[in-house]
């Protein structure tokens, strides 16, 4: 079984039980917060006067426990990390919003979810915090247009994880975070002893065992490592249905599951220039033309609107492709012929990017199809595999006529549609946000 379960990634009215699953998650969440004492604002506020460090202990124990299990499951290949929601990084709205939240925390004595645990157990201050929360979220909606550009762009890095920031394996980050957490637990207990006059000898001894188990698990995560791109590529599956028309009966519909290599071999991911062009005028999709050739070739000639990402730099844009574009984006990878585009396709597919296709025959085929009447373009008989097959009089980029074919002239084009739009999760709301 592959996790996460596709039908559970978002709630859907088509599967009412998905609401039940999320309600159960919330139930367990609220139950745990209440039983840890987070319904009482004094317990939360004490964190900031060093008398009782329950907040940091519960929070970091939860983080490190979940982290070890999560990256253990990812390392063992049970869980596809590209399908796990990772909060997108916006440095400046995150930092300022965080500072504001801190002020709200110490003034109000709660954070949003703990106020739910508090309000639901009859605490009047918890109810008022919740009520204030509705006002605060409303005020944000009303004032956001004043700084919408800053809010949506300042310090934006897309889906960015700490292992990418520091350039070290994810297992190493897990080990370091756990060492940091253990140090914080030790420090918290010392602070409780000094400021809270707490007798540490009454603390359960088993917590030391827990710390050792946690550290051992982190080391295991480190040694298991992350699945290689090749492992991930081999696990990718595509679903395609084919409909066989029947005489005097409903057509037979077959659903086939293909591997990525099957998709290439059966050429199900190769789209003709006509389909790539028509995608621009299809309301249901947002086409993104990814040109993986060298910058020199791109400057000579490229399709209008194509983004140049040379093949050796394509891994740099994966975090952005996973988080930023609208869910209905269709990525069309192209090189001069197909060799580089196929490599780019494999990398993107292995990284979990959805709706990736390859321009059949590459840019050369595009020129052959849309530029056949352009007398300034001369075929280059000496072109090798995946090289530009034409000689261009000047590096005009996308200013050749065939770079942006006339939609009226090419109103009717017939092609076998290969694009099957797969809608991934809606990213607008995000995690807690």
């Amino acid at each position, binding site marked *: 079984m592959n996790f996460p379960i596709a039908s559970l990634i978002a709630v859907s009215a088509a599967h009412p039980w998905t609401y039940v699953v999320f309600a*159960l998650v919330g139930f367990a969440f*609220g139950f745990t917060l209440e039983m840890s004492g987070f319904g009482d604002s004094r317990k939360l506020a004490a964190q900031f006067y060093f008398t009782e460090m329950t907040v940091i202990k519960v929070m970091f124990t939860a983080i490190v*426990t979940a982290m070890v299990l999560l990256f253990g499951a990812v390392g063992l290949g049970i869980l596809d990390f590209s399908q796990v929601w990772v*909060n997108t990084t916006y440095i400046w709205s995150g930092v300022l919003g965080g500072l504001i*939240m801190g002020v709200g925390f110490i003034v109000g004595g709660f954070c949003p979810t703990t106020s739910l645990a508090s309000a639901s157990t009859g605490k009047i201050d918890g109810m008022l915090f919740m009520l204030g929360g509705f006002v605060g979220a409303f005020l944000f909606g009303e004032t956001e*247009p004043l700084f919408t550009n800053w809010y949506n762009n300042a310090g934006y890095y897309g889906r960015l994880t700490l292992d990418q920031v520091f350039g070290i394996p994810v297992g190493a980050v897990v080990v370091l975070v756990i060492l940091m957490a253990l140090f914080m637990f030790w420090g918290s207990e010392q602070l409780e002893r000094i400021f809270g006059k707490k007798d540490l000898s009454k603390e359960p001894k088993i917590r030391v065992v827990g710390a050792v188990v946690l550290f051992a698990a982190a080391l295991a995560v480190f040694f298991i490592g992350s699945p290689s791109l090749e492992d991930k590529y081999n696990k990718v599956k595509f679903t395609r249905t084919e409909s066989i028309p029947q005489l005097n009966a409903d057509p037979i519909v077959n659903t086939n599951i293909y591997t990525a290599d099957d998709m290439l071999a059966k050429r199900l991911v190769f789209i003709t220039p006509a389909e790539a062009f028509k995608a621009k005028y299809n309301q249901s999709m947002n086409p993104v033309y990814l040109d993986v050739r060298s910058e020199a070739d791109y400057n000579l000639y490229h399709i209008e609107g194509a983004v140049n990402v040379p093949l050796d730099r394509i891994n740099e844009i994966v975090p952005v492709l996973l988080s930023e574009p609208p869910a209905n984006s269709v990525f069309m990878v192209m090189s001069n012929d197909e060799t580089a585009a196929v490599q780019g396709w494999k990398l993107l597919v292995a990284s979990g990017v959805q709706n990736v296709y390859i321009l059949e025959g590459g840019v050369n085929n595009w020129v052959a199809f849309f530029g056949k009447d352009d007398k300034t373009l001369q075929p280059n008989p000496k072109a090798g595999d995946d090289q530009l097959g034409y000689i261009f009089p000047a590096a005009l980029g996308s200013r050749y006529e065939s770079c942006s074919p006339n939609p009226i002239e090419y109103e009717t084009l017939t092609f076998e549609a290969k694009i099957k739009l797969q809608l991934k999760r809606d990213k607008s709301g995000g995690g807690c*946000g």
Partner: protein
Amino acid sequence: MTTQTKKSIFNQPEKAYVHPYFGGMVLGIILFLALLFTGNGLGSSGATARIDAALVDAVSPSHVDNNPYLLKMAGGDKNPFDDWILPVFIGALLGGFASGAFNGRLKFMTTKGPNISNRTRWLMAFLGGVIFLYGARMARGCTSGQALTGGTTLSAGSWLVMFAIFGGAYGMAYFVRKLWL
């Protein structure tokens, strides 16, 4: 507050809170299971915003259509409740209630520092809620969605948000110490 009666609404004896490390471990397992099965973590502040959006949409749909922030949640025929965060929010309310009932902690009371009146506490709780959720929307998530969930998935931005939350609270703590000490 200790002078208040220890009898709860359901007249159960009040039980002690669990040990923080145990509570944290249980919470971590829940968070892991949520990420494993659904790919989503925990959260709640998004639900507050969505309920707001639904209210605005009910009162003035045209206002929603003129506000890009609300438009994303409730524009056109979009249902602002069509999101996983809503069932989590309602579930958390029920879960908190269940734990309170189970452990004998259901009672109407105000949790506050020893040297302020109930009224002051109520006002500050309300104000704190306003400030917190304003910040939570700006940072695109609160302690649950950013610090807890984003911290677990190693999101770089979430770790920054987490440090900012603690920085803001520790920085402000001295100035509002009368509320708590």
